[in-house]
Structure formats: structure tokens, C-alpha cells
């Protein structure tokens, strides 16, 4: 049985891990873009960032003082046995957020949009966000926290089917160039592209693509995987590196997620997951054990299913 208390403790742990320890896959990705960087200033910036990650881990302090907007992604297995109901989980997540804010410490970022008042704990109306999904044949609950920088590097546009790949490239360039100048989006970054869905789904897909997939991971559709690589190369050919200085380090990786959309439209969103790509995951099993990792494993085959029924035959792959 998974108790509210163990959910609170595990969520507090991942809040800390996310804020302090740079995920290995992103660090490896940064090092590989750095090895190709010939711009002196851009190269210096990346070297300093790598130094910063080490300092954060050694001193156990947050790698960036801007907490971003901490949030949670929860995946509940059909067979997960937990107490306290869904609202019990939500309460535990809010409590963990407040406790980690005080203890790490994290900067309390969340304020009321109009009155600019706050509770000094990153908790408030609709904050932290909690997104729920479900998984067949699983007796666990996965909780992922993401602390994504909040101000720059995200945009949405309604393209049309006739715009095609050219339109996608155009909008990606527009976004990367405008937010890349002066490094407002803190590149080199993991770029998430959402294609399709309705407007809000499109935003959500792009954000999840940026924050919930590992560097080096490709979309299972080979043609989309190809497009990911092509767009990544396009981003790195802009001539802009870290902080908008001359260079080649813009994109560490680029992930695309799609959703079936309106027959007349091709909505697209772009999201940049900044130099502090903060994510951490805990899996709580029904037997009470907890395991921590940096791969959210959010986009399972079940999650990307296309049909009404979840195909029995492909069930075996679900947890691969």
C-alpha cells in the first residue's frame, strides 16, 4: 500500500534532486555540443555552466536560483494500491513543494498574477500544476517533477496543412532566433515541439516533449525521428551559441510529440528547456519500495496509442 506520507517524502526528494543535480543525459548532451563549439565566448559560457553543475552537486545548492515553475507529472498504474484517494496525493505534492522550498532553499517564485502576493512556498491557486496519466498492467505510481524556467523561449502558432515542413522550419527559426538573442532562453537547450492536437494540447505536448524525454531519445515514428534530427541541425546552423554569442550551440536535442488535430490546421508549439534542465522521477511500488531515476518514461506506448482499445499484443512492450 502506498501511503500519502511516502508520496510526500519521495516528492520532497525529487524536488531536491531536480533542483541540485543536473541529469546525466543532459550533461552528456551539453558536453557534446561544447566539443563542437568554435565560438570563444559561447564556449566560455558552456564551460562555466558545466562548472556550475559541479558546484551545485558539491555544495548541495540549486544550480539556478530561479526556481522556474515547479510542477508534477503523475502516472498511476491500474493496479497501484494507494490510500487517501487522489486528493490525498495532491495534498502530499503541495506539502512536498512547500517543504522543499524552505529546506533547499528554493526561491519562492509563485505569485498571484494580479496582486503579486505570495505564500513564500511555491504553492497557490493552480500551483504547482499536476498532470495525470494512467498506465495498464502496472502496480506503481510514477511522480516526476520538472522545474522549467518560465519567461522566455515558448511560442505557439496556428500553421496550416499547406505550410507543411517549410512552415514548421520557419516557425522554429523565428522562435529560436528571437529568444536566442542575448540568450534569453538560456540555450543550449532541449527543444520540445508540439504538433497537432487542439491549441492547449499542442502547448502541453511541446512542453512534455522538451521536459519529459531524455537527450538522445527519438520518436518511435521513423519519419518523425528523422524530422527531429533535421530540425536539430537547422537550429544549430543558425550561427548562434550560448547567450546569443556567435557559435553553434543552440539545440542539445529536439523532441517532437504529435496529436491528431483539426483537419484544416497544423498547430505548432515550441518550448525550450533551459540550461538548468531540472527533472527527477520517483517510482513508488505498491509493496512500499521507492526507486529514483532521471528518465520520466512518460511517453509509453500506451500513452501514444492511436486506437480505441489498447492492443493486447503490444502490451508486452509497454514497460520495455
Amino acid at each position, binding site marked *: 500500500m502506498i501511503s500519502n506520507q511516502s508520496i510526500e517524502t519521495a516528492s520532497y526528494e525529487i524536488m531536491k534532486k531536480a533542483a541540485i543535480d543536473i541529469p546525466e543525459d543532459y550533461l552528456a548532451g551539453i558536453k557534446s555540443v561544447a566539443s563542437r563549439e568554435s565560438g*570563444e*565566448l559561447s564556449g*566560455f*559560457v*558552456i564551460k*562555466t*555552466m558545466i*562548472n*556550475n*553543475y559541479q*558546484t*551545485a552537486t558539491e*555544495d548541495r*545548492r*540549486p*544550480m*539556478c*536560483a*530561479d*526556481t522556474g515553475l515547479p510542477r508534477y507529472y503523475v502516472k498511476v498504474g491500474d493496479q497501484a494500491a494507494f490510500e487517501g484517494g487522489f486528493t490525498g496525493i495532491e495534498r502530499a505534492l503541495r506539502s512536498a513543494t512547500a517543504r522543499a522550498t*524552505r*529546506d*533547499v*532553499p528554493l*526561491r*519562492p517564485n509563485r505569485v498571484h498574477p494580479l496582486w503579486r502576493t*505570495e505564500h*513564500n512556498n511555491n504553492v497557490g491557486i493552480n500551483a504547482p500544476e499536476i498532470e495525470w496519466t494512467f498506465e495498464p498492467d502496472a502496480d506503481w505510481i510514477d511522480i516526476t517533477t520538472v522545474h522549467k*524556467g518560465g*519567461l522566455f523561449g515558448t511560442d505557439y*502558432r*496556428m*500553421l*496550416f496543412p*499547406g*505550410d507543411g515542413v*517549410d*512552415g514548421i*522550419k*520557419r*516557425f522554429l*527559426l523565428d522562435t529560436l*532566433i*528571437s529568444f536566442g*538573442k*542575448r*540568450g*534569453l532562453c*538560456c540555450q543550449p537547450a532541449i527543444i520540445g515541439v508540439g504538433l497537432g492536437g487542439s491549441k492547449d494540447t499542442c502547448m502541453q505536448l511541446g512542453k512534455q516533449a522538451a521536459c519529459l524525454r531524455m537527450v538522445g531519445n527519438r520518436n518511435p515514428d521513423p519519419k518523425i525521428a528523422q524530422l527531429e534530427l533535421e530540425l536539430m541541425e*537547422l537550429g544549430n546552423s*543558425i*550561427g*548562434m551559441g*550560448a*547567450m*546569443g554569442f*556567435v557559435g553553434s550551440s543552440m539545440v542539445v536535442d529536439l523532441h517532437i510529440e504529435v496529436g491528431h488535430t483539426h483537419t484544416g490546421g497544423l498547430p505548432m508549439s515550441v518550448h525550450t528547456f*533551459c*540550461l*538548468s534542465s531540472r527533472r527527477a522521477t520517483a517510482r513508488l511500488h505498491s509493496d512500499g519500495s521507492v526507486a529514483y531515476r532521471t528518465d520520466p518514461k512518460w511517453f509509453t506506448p500506451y500513452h501514444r496509442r492511436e486506437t480505441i482499445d489498447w492492443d493486447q499484443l503490444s502490451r508486452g512492450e509497454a514497460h520495455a
Partner: protein
Amino acid sequence: MLEEVHVSLPADAEAIAALKLGSVVYLDGVVYTARERVYQRVLNEGHSLPQGLGEISNVNFHCSPAAAVKDDGTYEIGGVTATASFRFSKYLADWLDLSGTKIIIGKGGMPGDDYQHVLAPRGAVYLTTVGYGTGALLGRGVQGVEAVHWLDEFGIAQAMWLFRVKDFGPFLVDSDLQGQSLFAQQGDLVNRKIDDLYTGLKEPALHRYGETKDRTDELI
């Protein structure tokens, strides 16, 4: 290799004049944080500056620390990261005049016009944090909290913090006393290639209201 310099604070006119675009800077002494709430309080509402601020520090850091007040009333400073400075452009002339500040540290620089017409004529320069997210490195450079003002009223992010710092950095010199800007110079170099990136891509089916097609434009 980029040139590296250490500056003792408060910085004197000579040290500031010697700062060259693109040099790497580390600071020793006291820096203070101030952003919109502090500016409004002093400049719009007419409150006076904390006593003696000018003698202690002439460095304004556009920053909100990840800090917490401990049970014994002392402060714990975790990470320290700059916030985007262009938003404070409108306050700067009056603020520099009133506070005697000579170094602004922040994220992303200010428009070139501000360097030429506001900072340089007042003997002030702009340093940018590096990569922006270097909160842990900068946090390590903070040795202690000298004082904090308006904490209860403004909260942790907007309060005025005075940090005692050592080997605090790295920062890059973005503007000098001639009013030149490193960001602008680098931006010009990047801009030269941008048109080529779009050649061969077809026009979008629907344009956006207020859209610019001049990609050399900046958002700030």
C-alpha cells in the same frame, strides 16, 4: 583566451574605465540587489535609500536569491541568479543619479541606447552573468548577508539584499565607458547570416498581426 580581472568594491573610476568588452570579471566586496519593487519604493514613492548604501556598495545586482530565513533569524543563501535587466530600463537614469551606482549586473544586457545615453555618461558599466543559470557558482561567492531591507513587505525575491562577496563571478563585461555593447556587436555578426536561413522556405499561409519580418530586430 578571454582576459580575467578582479575588481574590489566599491569600484573606483579607474577600475571601471579599465573594463573591456568581453573580459571576465570577479568581484570582492559588497553588492546589493534591487529590482522593480525597490525602484518603485524609492523613485516613485519617494522613500529614502538605506543609510550609507553609497559608501558600502556601488554595484546593483538585478537578482532574486534562492534564500530562506532560518529559525534563528539568520539567512541561508542557496543559489543566486540574475533576472532580465531590460525591464528596468526606465528606472535606471534616476537610480544611478540617486545611488551613485557604477556597475549594473544582470541578465541579457540593456538596449545599446541606454549604454550610450544613461550608463556611460554617468561613468557606469554593465556586466552580464554567464549562461544566466550559474546560480550555484555565484551562490558560492556570497560569503554572507550584510543587511536586508524591505524583506517583510516585498518578500525574498524583491527585497534589497546586501551580500558580502568574494571571487564573485564570473561576469562578462557587456558595456564600457564608450557605451559600446558586446551583445550588440555579437548580434550584428549573427544577423548577417539570418536571411540565408530562410531562403527557399515558402511564405506562411497566414500572417500574424503586428508581425515583423526583420529578423535583425530584438525582442527587448
